[in-house]
């Protein structure tokens, strides 16, 4: 049975205020309370599992899949994610660190066609984001200490940040060519190269997990990797319902229902941070100045593919309230919500139509068209 609890909750509040005015509403309320009672006692055939993979908690939600099959699919997804994590890990010895070493030493490396495609995609997103999503910030991220599982204790010195900034190569210096001998990645910068696909790789592996599920015949699922997700299909007769975390509270700020196949990625200043001498330093570093971006509290992007949503959430967080529209347009992203530090909401008309706020009173909202 279809059930939208959130809608019923609001209906309930409205009806309380109207009790003495409308017997019809009361009658409807009684009917609806019966609907709620029936529905909430129905066990929906939803398989839920949490796995530790890709350095985070991955939530696997599948509709109408039994436990044995769900466990098998979860295990396969976990193995796929761990393999991908190792392959693209920017800090532990593996294929990406070998690539970084080769590019730093000789400015050239032969790579697989698949790797070339993924790096090319990351460089394209870097260009369309005007460099706000930047996959070669490895040295700067390492300087801040956000590359490990433990958050750092203090910020780096101003001098060290300025020095690291001079070592970031330009995106335009990279070229990828394919011929009958293979795929070739070269860079003409003379600077040390440190690819770190952290702001993009999670999106790629979420996409691949969904592709895997589809190949296995699963068409109703959610893969949520550390708070970033892609949902396909529905939960039977009702759509998947997704909460968007409050950036300054443990609760949910807003919610949205999924339309068949969509990714929702959020970047927030609460995800990884430390406080030093009374000031908060979070993990989203602005490539333009080397410091944590300081304009908004969170950005949520809804897009059909996770890889773009992932890069766009990072880029638009850095772009902030003044520049996000231009960058969103350039990246081809239409559904965007920014929440600033005072909980004011900026969002596109496309997303405004679908957003339901879960906070009371509702936030101040400013709808902005993309250019």
């Amino acid at each position, binding site marked *: 049975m279809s059930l939208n609890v959130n809608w019923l909750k609001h209906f309930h509040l409205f009806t309380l205020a109207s009790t003495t005015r409308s017997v019809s509403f009361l009658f409807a309320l009684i009917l609806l309370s019966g609907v709620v009672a029936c529905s909430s006692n129905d066990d929906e055939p939803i398989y839920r599992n949490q796995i530790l993979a890709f350095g985070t908690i991955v939530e696997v939600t599948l509709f109408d899949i039994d436990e044995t099959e769900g466990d098998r699919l979860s295990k396969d997804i976990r193995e796929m994610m761990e393999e991908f994590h190792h392959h693209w890990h920017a800090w532990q010895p593996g294929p990406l660190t070998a690539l970084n070493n080769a590019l730093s030493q000789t400015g050239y490396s032969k790579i697989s066609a698949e790797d070339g495609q993924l790096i090319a995609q990351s460089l394209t997103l870097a260009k369309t984001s005007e460099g706000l999503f930047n996959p070669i910030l490895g040295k700067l991220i390492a300087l801040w200490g956000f590359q490990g599982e433990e958050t750092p204790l203090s910020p780096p010195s101003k001098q060290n940040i300025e020095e690291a900034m001079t070592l970031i190569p330009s995106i335009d210096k990279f070229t990828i060519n394919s011929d009958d001998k293979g795929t070739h990645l070269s860079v003409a910068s003379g600077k040390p190269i440190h690819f770190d696909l952290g702001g993009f790789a999670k999106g790629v592996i979420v996409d691949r997990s969904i592709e895997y599920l589809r190949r296995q015949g699963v068409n109703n699922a959610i893969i*949520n990797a550390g708070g970033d997700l892609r949902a396909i299909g529905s939960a039977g007769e009702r759509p998947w319902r997704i909460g968007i975390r409050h950036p300054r509270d443990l609760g949910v700020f807003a919610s949205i229902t999924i339309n068949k196949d969509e990714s929702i990625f959020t970047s927030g200043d609460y995800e990884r941070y430390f406080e030093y001498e009374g000031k908060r330093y979070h993990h989203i570093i602005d490539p333009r100045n080397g410091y944590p971006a300081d304009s908004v509290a969170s950005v949520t992007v809804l897009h059909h593919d996770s890889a773009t949503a992932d890069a766009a959430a990072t880029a638009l967080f850095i772009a902030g309230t003044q520049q996000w529209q231009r960058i969103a347009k350039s990246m081809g992203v239409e559904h965007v919500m920014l929440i600033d530090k005072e909980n004011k909401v900026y969002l596109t008309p496309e997303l405004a139509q679908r957003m339901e706020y879960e906070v009371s009173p509702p936030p101040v909202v400013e709808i902005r068209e993309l250019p």
Partner: protein
Amino acid sequence: MTRVDLLIMIIAVAALPLLYLQLWGPNYRGTEVNIIVADQKPQRHSLLRDQTLAIKGKLGDSIITINNGKAAFIESPCRNKQCIHSGWHSRNGDTTACLPNRITLSVVGDGIARFDSVTF
């Protein structure tokens, strides 16, 4: 207002507390806590039984306490203690983790969760 209207109104007002409980009451409360250590079978513990658990993770033992229907990390060998700072968890769907120690804690219940998933 007819007698029928009055009767309907009385029944409806009487039904409101039930509806409140249905929407915000026990259905959103968790009944069990699901603890997962990487590469191990998940373990479930009732939220109705107060106890303290020592869960061995990658770095050492994380101490999880269940008290009065709520669960929390109270000690952990990680550096930043974010798992401890996340506080108590009691609602169906609440999740926290000590990633350095590879342990997750999530609350599950019989009722429906408000959301199928949460982005953060």
